Every structure is written in structure tokens, then in C-alpha cells.
């Protein structure tokens, strides 16, 4: 198909742009964009094995089923599916959400649920409803890289609490809260991805979950539980969600269909108490009026088929194999100074290299070998994480993963060797990793040293 007739926008001259620059809101100064974006432009080349994305594998979704569902929608509900819908989302979508949350042991009041345009919008709406410039947000270190631009765009001060193999260190959190209190400040919320965290792959232990919830109650603080990966568990017993432990008073819950069905349908949700929900609904009206009705109809049809758990189980099988392939490749190809997390689910492994290796620079070298990852820096607001990297194992098949890790291992090996030649010393011990020092026995994740 040829392009429709269109006008090519004349690119502005530099003096025009100076004029725009004078118009930009203050918050655009802190929005990150960047060198990394330029590097990422190169990772999009088709010949690059990308372990950088966070893409679920949608290739196993049966096309016939997809076609049948869409056909039914077209035949039975075309006018409604093409129309605006309620800002809160359709009740039928909320029923599906309640079913998904029920599968993890939660019993939300459907009235507390709002359908959002992806989990990302839920985080953004919380920022919109809760954050004034200069407000404090607490999150994990490292944290979900996609949450950082949200906090930055509302000009919040983001404080990151170190993670180890059991997730966020609650002692450090308490110390930080005490310090803030002594300064007369309170965080607006504590953001956490408790299951198979993006990017570190670690899971918050039961004991820490309980402490976090108690602490939130005692200090009357909000906790935002972002749980995209909880159902993607490869082994071990599920841990109770914070929302379930708390009962929904101080824990706001963010969920999504992205990882259990499709990120393309852009359907997520937020569960919050009524007082907060009122502001969230106002924020969502301003943002987009309502989430796509068409994809809500799709989810309704899909859940009506009753086979969604089966599909998730299938994904779990696939991802478990891919995680194992990545761990095996890491053991084989990464140098002994490297450490990495072994997630019991989710999509990501977090690897940490000797402190003298800057993973942003390493990415440039890796791209010459046609392989990409996310430099750890992207998961911090303060420049930490420079010797770590996030590796995704859900998007590629096992052979691609093994080859990708081999290539990354090769360029790391070259840097380690060069550093030894430069210093005449044996390489320094690895930097602290979120995998921590002690092997936990509460959660099925352990730190693994390269062989």
C-alpha cells in the first residue's frame, strides 16, 4: 500500500526551537531521555539479539481463537465495542480482574477497581493524584525503569531502598522513614514490585511483606504494590500479596493483563479505597476518558472461554525453560567475578559485574557483537547500578538466549582481561548485588556465583 497524501512537517529552525525551549514546563527538564535512547535505537536493528526488552512471548497465542473472539465481538457487539465506555471500565472487565486477583488469593471489592490503559497508566494516575513537586516517593533499588520517568515527571524526590535476595531491605526503609520524619517529611507512597521484581528478579520474603504492611499501618503510609508477574511463578509456593495481608486499607494494588495475556491490548487496573479512587477517576477522565472498549470486549470474550489459566501455565512452562537456558549460559560464559539473581518467575535476571565495568559503555561494545541488554543505570535515579545489567529471558527462544549471553560474556571477558593488564592486579571483588550476601531460605531464590 502506498502512503496516503500527506504534508511533511517542515522541521523547525534552531531559533524556533529556542522559542519552544522557553515554553517547556519545568518538569520536562527532569524527564530522562537520552544517550541510552540513542543506544537503544541501535538495539532495534533486526540483526541484534535483544535481551533488553521486556516483551512477553505472544507468539503462542492461538490465532484461530483470536479470530473467533474478534468475530464474535464484531457480530454481536459491534456498536458497543466501537463506542466510548465508562471511565472506571466495564463491570465485565472488572469481573475478569477480580478472577485474576482471586487466583492469587485476593478478594477486592469490585467497586474499588478501575480499569486503566496498562499498568503504566495506573502508576501515572497515582502520581497525578498524589504527587506535588518535591514530594518524596520511596521505591526499591533497583526499581522498575518505567516508573522512574513517572516519578520524575511529577517532580517527586525519589529515594531508593536497597534490595537483596529477599527484596527491599525493611531495616533500611525504617531508617529512611525515621530520617525523613526527623526532617518533618513523609513519603507520599512506597512503590514496590514484590514478585519477581523488574529488574532484579527478586521476591519480597514473607517476613518482609508482613513487616512492610505493619509498618504502613503503624505509620499510616501508602504502599503501591505493582504485581505484573505474580502468576508467572516457575516453582515454589506463592506468597500472599501485600494487598491481601493488608486488606486494602494502606496497600494500593496495580495489576495488568500485559504479562498473562497481551501487552498490546493495553489493559491494566488499579485497586484503591474509595476516597482515593474518586481522584483517580478524575485524573483518568482528564487523561483519556476511558480505556479502549474494544480490548475490554476482547478480554471479556477471552475470559468467557475459561482457558486463561491454561494459557498462563503454558507461558510459565516456556519461560521456565528460557530462564534455565539463561542461567546455564551465564554459568558458562560470564566471568567468575560476576553474580546474578535466579528468579523463581517473571521475565528478568539481574547480573552484576566487577565495579570497574560500566555497563552503558559495555553496551556499546556488545552492540558491535549484535547483542543488547539494559544497563543497570536505567533502574536508578542517582547514577548507581553502573556495573549491573537487566537481562530478559521471555522474548527470545532458548538458542537465542544462549547465543546472546555468549556474546555478552565475550565482551565482558575482554574488559576483565584488559583491566587486569592495566592494573597488573587480579580483578577486584564484585560490587554489591541485590542478590545480597546471605542465602535466604524463605524464598526459592539464591545468589549464584559464576563457575
Amino acid at each position: 500500500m502506498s502512503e496516503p497524501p500527506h504534508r511533511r512537517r517542515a522541521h523547525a529552525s534552531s531559533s524556533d526551537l529556542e522559542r519552544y525551549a522557553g515554553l517547556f514546563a519545568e518538569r520536562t527538564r527532569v524527564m530522562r531521555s537520552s544517550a541510552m535512547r540513542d543506544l537503544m535505537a541501535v538495539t532495534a536493528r533486526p540483526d541484534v539479539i535483544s535481551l533488553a526488552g521486556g516483551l512477553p512471548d505472544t507468539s503462542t497465542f492461538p490465532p484461530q481463537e483470536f479470530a473467533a473472539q474478534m468475530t464474535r465481538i464484531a457480530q454481536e457487539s459491534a456498536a458497543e465495542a466501537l463506542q466510548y465506555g465508562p471511565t472506571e471500565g466495564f463491570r465485565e472487565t472488572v469481573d475478569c480482574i477480580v478472577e485474576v486477583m482471586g487466583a492469587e488469593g485476593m478478594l477486592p471489592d469490585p467497586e474499588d477497581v478501575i480499569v486503566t490503559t496498562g499498568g503504566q497508566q495506573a502508576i501515572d494516575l497515582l502520581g497525578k493524584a498524589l504527587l506535588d513537586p518535591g514530594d518524596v516517593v520511596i521505591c526499591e533499588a533497583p526499581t522498575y525503569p518505567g516508573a522512574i520517568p513517572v516519578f520524575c515527571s511529577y517532580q517527586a524526590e525519589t529515594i531508593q531502598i536497597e534490595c537483596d535476595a529477599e527484596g527491599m531491605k525493611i531495616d533500611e526503609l525504617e531508617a529512611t522513614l525515621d530520617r525523613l520524619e526527623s526532617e518533618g517529611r513523609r513519603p507520599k507512597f512506597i512503590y514496590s514490585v514484590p514478585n519477581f521484581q523488574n529488574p532484579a528478579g527478586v521476591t519480597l520474603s514473607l517476613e518482609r511483606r508482613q513487616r512492610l504492611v505493619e509498618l504502613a499501618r503503624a505509620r499510616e503510609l501508602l504502599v503501591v504494590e505493582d504485581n505484573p508477574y505474580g502468576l508467572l511463578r516457575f516453582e515454589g509456593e506463592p506468597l500472599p500479596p501485600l494487598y491481601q495481608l493488608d486488606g486494602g486499607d494502606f496497600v494500593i494494588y496495580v495489576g495488568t493483563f500485559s504479562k498473562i495475556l497481551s501487552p498490546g491490548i493495553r489493559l491494566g487496573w488499579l485497586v484503591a479505597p474509595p476516597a482515593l479512587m474518586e481522584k483517580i477517576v478524575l485524573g483518568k477522565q482528564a487523561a483519556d476518558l476511558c480505556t479502549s472498549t474494544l480490548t475490554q470486549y476482547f478480554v471479556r470474550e477471552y475470559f468467557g472461554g475459561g482457558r486463561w489459566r491454561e494459557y498462563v501455565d503454558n507461558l510459565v512452562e516456556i519461560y521456565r525453560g528460557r530462564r534455565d537456558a539463561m542461567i546455564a549460559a551465564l554459568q558458562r560464559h560470564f566471568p567468575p567475578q560476576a553474580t546474578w539473581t535466579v528468579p523463581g518467575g517473571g521475565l528478568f535476571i539481574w547480573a552484576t559485574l566487577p565495579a570497574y565495568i560500566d555497563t552503558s559503555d559495555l553496551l556499546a561494545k556488545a552492540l558491535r557483537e549484535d547483542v543488547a541488554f539494559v544497563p543497570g543505570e536505567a533502574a536508578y535515579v542517582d547514577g548507581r547500578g553502573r556495573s549491573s545489567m537487566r537481562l530478559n529471558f521471555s522474548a527470545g527462544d532458548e538458542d537465542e538466549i544462549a547465543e546472546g549471553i555468549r556474546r555478552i560474556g565475550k565482551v565482558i571477558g575482554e574488559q576483565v582481561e584488559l583491566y587486569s593488564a592495566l592494573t597488573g592486579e587480579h580483578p577486584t571483588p564484585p560490587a554489591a548485588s541485590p542478590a545480597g550476601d546471605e542465602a535466604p531460605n524463605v524464598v526459592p531464590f539464591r545468589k549464584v556465583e559464576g563457575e
Partner: protein
Amino acid sequence: MRVAVLKGGRSLERGVSLRSGARVEDALERLGHEVLPLEADGGLVKRLLAEKPDVAFVALHGVGGEDGTAQELLEILGVPFTGPGVAACARCIDKVLAKHELRSAGIPTPDWFAFNETAFRELGAADALGDLEQRLGFPLVIKPSRGGSALGVKFAASWYEVPEALVSAFSYDNRVLLERFVEGRELAVGILGGEALPIVEAIPQSGDRYDFEARYEIGRTSFVCPAELSAEVADAVTEQAVAAYEALGCSGFSRVDLILGDEGPQVLEVNAIPGLTETSLLPQAAEAAGLSFEGLVERILELALAPAGA
């Protein structure tokens, strides 16, 4: 005219190149030319052969496009192209080679040492680094020899920071230079057909001087053009810039980056094919000289088609 615009490529400056290319394509269309956008990939030669453009506008930056590779192909195919030729590109992209040429021509450039990876891996060059403090002093700027942007450029405030900075720089190239850091004002002189455009001064708003992000983001760096300099100093800067352009054999257009410190202007590097994005310095300088972006693009084309020596 049928003008092929070469953009993209595999270099780390691919994103910048795509932006330069898109802007050039717009300008060419408005000038009434027939535009042929060409991604610099495996199909490039085939498409050039099939499409037979009258001239190629090279909007490639970094290794593979700005280093003479694309220019060599265009010469073989007999397609006239914009910007410097093969030899000048090869000299400019390699900062070490360029600095040698500049010094031979008597053009001031900060003191430096260059090493390749083999020297460290196989010849024990690490032992020679001990003299750095005496020879160059700290802080030092450590850069990959090739690459037009500030990627991989690090400061070392002390000896202790050198190995790590070297590991970073070697991620981009197998040759790096350690350069004396000269404190001063950052100036850029665009040169069009051998004539200097008004001097641009780049004033970073915050953060490090050599910040890759600041270079391509509106609002991160402010530019003053013409730079506020006395006539005498401005003449000295322009003279050094034109001398550098000539010493490296540039033609068409290029951009010379200088630092103006206590010892007068010193040339840091010459960008054979400078960026042509909205925030790039050469178009701003042209505008200050009363030349619109279309005017600049048209002039660059004329120079590409003019008989050698123009």
C-alpha cells in the same frame, strides 16, 4: 535533481543521523529536488546502482559513514557526494591521526598520548602510564580515538581513575587517547566551502561538559552565536579553525571544535560530517550568517557538484 540522502547506518550515532537525514530531506523537498531516502544498510549499493541519483547527500555520522567508508563506495560508483572526501574523513574520524596532522601543521592542540589495546594487552603499556602525571598532569580526558560524539569520553581526576576510564573508552574503539584537560570556553566553527561561519559557543546548563545527552537535547545546552569574543580573539579562533580544516584536507563543509583557554584557542577535533539536527551547531551558525537551513543545504549540494578545489 535526484538527490539520495544517506542516513542511519550501524554506528552508535544512528539516531542522530536519522534526525539529520530527515531534516535534510525536508529541506531538499522544499527546494524542489527529488528526494531518495536511503538507509545505509546492506542494500545501499544495490539501490544506488538502480536509482542512479545525481548526487548523494551524506547525512551519516560516526564509524561507517563519517570515516570514509560510504565515501569510498560513492567514489567507486561515480556518484558525487556532499562533504569531505575519503582521505579527509579517514583523518577526522581518527582523533589521534588528526591531532598528529594538526601538530605537524603547527596548529595548537592539547598534549596527548595514544595507546591501542594491544599495547596494554601484549606490550605491558600499563607501565608507561606512570609518567602521565608528569607529562600531562591531571585531570585528564580519556577518549576513544574514533567516534564523533562524546560517548565513552571520561575524565580522570587522578591516577586512580585511569584504568576504569580506559576500560570504558576501549569499549568504543581499540585505540584511545589520554589528553590534557584544558579549562576554557567551548567553541565550534562551522566551515562551508572553506569559509568560516560565525563562531558558536556552547554553554552547558548543568552537569559535565562532555555530556552526550546535552548535545542533542533542546534546553540542556544554550548556544550563543556569534560567540561574544573580541574581534582579535575571534579572528584567532577563525584562523585556527580554517587552518585545521585545510590541514585535514576537508572540503564542502565540516565543523571544527576548539577550546579557548588561557593559552589561546586549541583545536580539539574536526567533525567531517557535523550533525544537521535542530540542535546542531553548524545550522545555527549558518542561520547567524543569514543562511537558512534550505540555503545551507543548497550550498552544500552546489559544493558537492562544483569542480574539485572549490
